[in-house]
């Protein structure tokens, strides 16, 4: 029964926050408490799944292939825990950063709407239901990205909305074709049926449409242009939330689909995904290195990091998948953290542009440290979590004898370090530009605390890499052996 809570609780919180949207203080405290409760619930689910195996539930008492199934395996539980933890941090950060008009215009209910969609996408076991959760998530994010309605935001949100609508079109089209072919949309049932078919020439077409839809949502090459064009426009707390949640849902769904539905032509798909992964990570990081706005550098970086996750999928061994899952968790925390640190830079100096920044290390070493930790984690410096994530991915790559993609991954790591050092040098290390008079802004204590909390979480993820990797290996086992998922849902 606990499995419905990750969906119901955000809905309930959203309703309460909608009724009370004018009471600022109540909104702030209630949404913080709400996200803490949500994290706690997800953690209970993770514990349960890790000890007792995959959990499934049939709300409405309709049996498995007919009703909508909710399923939680270790991977989805891990993702839910990380997402809701990120939401706690963003809830602490927001009161000190986002202006009062936006906060009382429905910011908090929308965040819970987003979380409901994200959690729903993580635990649903039905493809059409998955589409609905994607829409819930996207609708909330459409409003969040345009919230406040500054001209720059509207420009960004037009691009974001348009491309995501096209992706949804592909998604629905693929669902229609698949349903016509197989007569079922329950993921476990469909996967079981596909394993009994003789040939699957037609199914690959639908799967490719799905793949296009998900690669738009997770910003893979060549469908990533919307992300850097829109992510830098809203207040950075919203961008940080998006960076920690949205693209990762696309990645999660790709893992789920690959594990369950890639039965035919596995070699083609593996090659295809590895090539896209290599291109994504390399092109993303090259474009990041050429930018001069902190938010744009970080946005392009998201793309590059998604490449790493997809690389783990392409390798498709337990080590590779576990590495990719660990990397995803690390990325959700570290990426959000770098964005929040960028927000601190903005509060301190009033700009995101590296040309007008400088001397921040001298001005406040603590703020510099808060950027340094997640940035070095992203670059993969031990003992921070990015190192372990990349280590396992590269180990998996060598074990599976995919030398080329592994070489690309190592090379991309160097460029990642370069682009992080670029922000460090320009914003923190170099002397203040003399022609620009620095604005000596105050950093709000809540934003500082939130960023520090997340930085501590990043360090802890690195320190306790051993136990977390254990859980990720368990999740990897479940992804590589889809029979476990199928049996858990169909009750065989």
């Amino acid at each position, binding site marked *: *029964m606990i499995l*419905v809570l990750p969906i*119901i609780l955000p*809905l*309930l919180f*959203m*309703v309460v926050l*909608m*009724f009370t*949207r004018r009471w600022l203080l109540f909104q702030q405290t209630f949404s913080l408490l709400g996200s803490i409760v949500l994290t706690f619930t997800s953690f209970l689910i993770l514990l349960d799944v890790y000890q007792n195996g995959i959990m499934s*539930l*049939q*709300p*409405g*008492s309709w049996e498995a292939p007919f009703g909508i199934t909710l399923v939680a395996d270790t991977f989805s539980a891990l993702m839910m825990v990380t997402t809701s933890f990120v939401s706690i941090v963003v809830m602490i950060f927001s009161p000190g950063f986002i202006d009062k008009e936006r906060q009382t215009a*429905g910011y908090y209910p929308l965040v819970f709407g987003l979380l409901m969609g994200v959690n729903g996408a993580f635990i649903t076991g039905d493809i059409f239901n998955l589409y609905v959760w994607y829409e819930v998530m996207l609708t909330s994010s459409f409003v969040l990205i345009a919230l406040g309605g500054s001209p720059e935001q509207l420009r960004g949100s037009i691009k974001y909305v348009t491309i995501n609508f096209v992706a949804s079109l592909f998604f629905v089209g693929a669902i229609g074709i698949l349903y016509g072919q197989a007569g079922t949309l329950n993921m476990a049932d469909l996967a079981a049926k596909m394993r009994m078919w003789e040939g699957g020439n037609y199914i690959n077409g639908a799967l490719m449409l799905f793949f296009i839809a998900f690669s738009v949502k997770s910003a893979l090459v060549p469908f990533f242009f919307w992300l850097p064009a829109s992510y830098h426009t809203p207040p950075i707390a919203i961008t940080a939330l998006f960076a920690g949640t949205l693209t990762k849902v696309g990645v999660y769904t790709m893992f789920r689909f690959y594990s369950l539905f890639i039965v035919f032509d596995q070699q083609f798909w593996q090659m295809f995904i590895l090539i896209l992964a290599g291109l994504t990570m390399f092109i993303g990081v090259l474009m990041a290195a050429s930018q001069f706005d902190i938010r744009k550098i970080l946005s392009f970086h998201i793309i590059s990091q998604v490449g790493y996750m997809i690389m783990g999928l392409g390798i498709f061994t337990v080590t590779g998948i576990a590495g990719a899952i660990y990397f995803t968790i690390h990325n959700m925390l570290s990426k959000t953290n770098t964005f929040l640190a960028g927000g601190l830079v903005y509060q301190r100096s009033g700009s995101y542009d590296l040309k007008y920044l400088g001397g921040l290390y001298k001005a406040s070493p603590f703020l510099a440290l808060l950027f340094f930790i997640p940035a070095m984690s992203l670059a993969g410096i031990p003992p921070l979590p990015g190192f372990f994530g990349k280590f396992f991915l590269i180990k998996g790559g060598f074990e599976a004898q995919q030398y080329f993609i592994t070489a690309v991954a190592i090379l991309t790591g160097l460029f990642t370090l370069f682009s992080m050092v670029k922000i460090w040098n320009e914003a923190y290390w170099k002397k203040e530009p003399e022609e620009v008079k620095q604005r000596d802004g105050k950093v709000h204590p809540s934003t500082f605390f939130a960023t520090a909390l997340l930085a501590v979480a990043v360090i802890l993820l690195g320190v306790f890499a051993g136990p977390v990797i254990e859980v990720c290996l368990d999740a990897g086992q479940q992804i590589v052996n889809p029979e476990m998922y199928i049996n858990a849902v169909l009750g065989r």
Partner: protein
Amino acid sequence: MESIILQIAARHMRPLLLVLSLIVLYRGHNEPGGGFIGGLMFGAAYILYAMAFGVKKTQKTLFFNPINLTALGLLVALASGIPAIFAGDLFMTGEWYTFFEHTAFELKLGTPLLFDVGVYFAVAGMLMMVMFSLMEE
């Protein structure tokens, strides 16, 4: 735009559409109809009024805020899943209750109707919210 014909029509159509929306809502329990269509009619009643008299005047005649109506709808829809838990079933299972049994007014109602009522409010509130903010421009 002030049109006397539209104003008179809107004034009389509003209660009519509201009653009809309730009929469509209840009809959806067993026949075509339902919360979504009913909600659209509910919203349309007020949108027609707003077209004739303007958004400000319409908002004055509303005794609720559209956002609160949407929230109420979501709450009711959520609540429709709860009775199943008390009956010992899984969340969102349809539970049916019979009123006035063995009389001429025998009435079978279930939690799906409650869910539909939630959809009705949510759709109406959402429609009004969107249309009012578009018409205000």
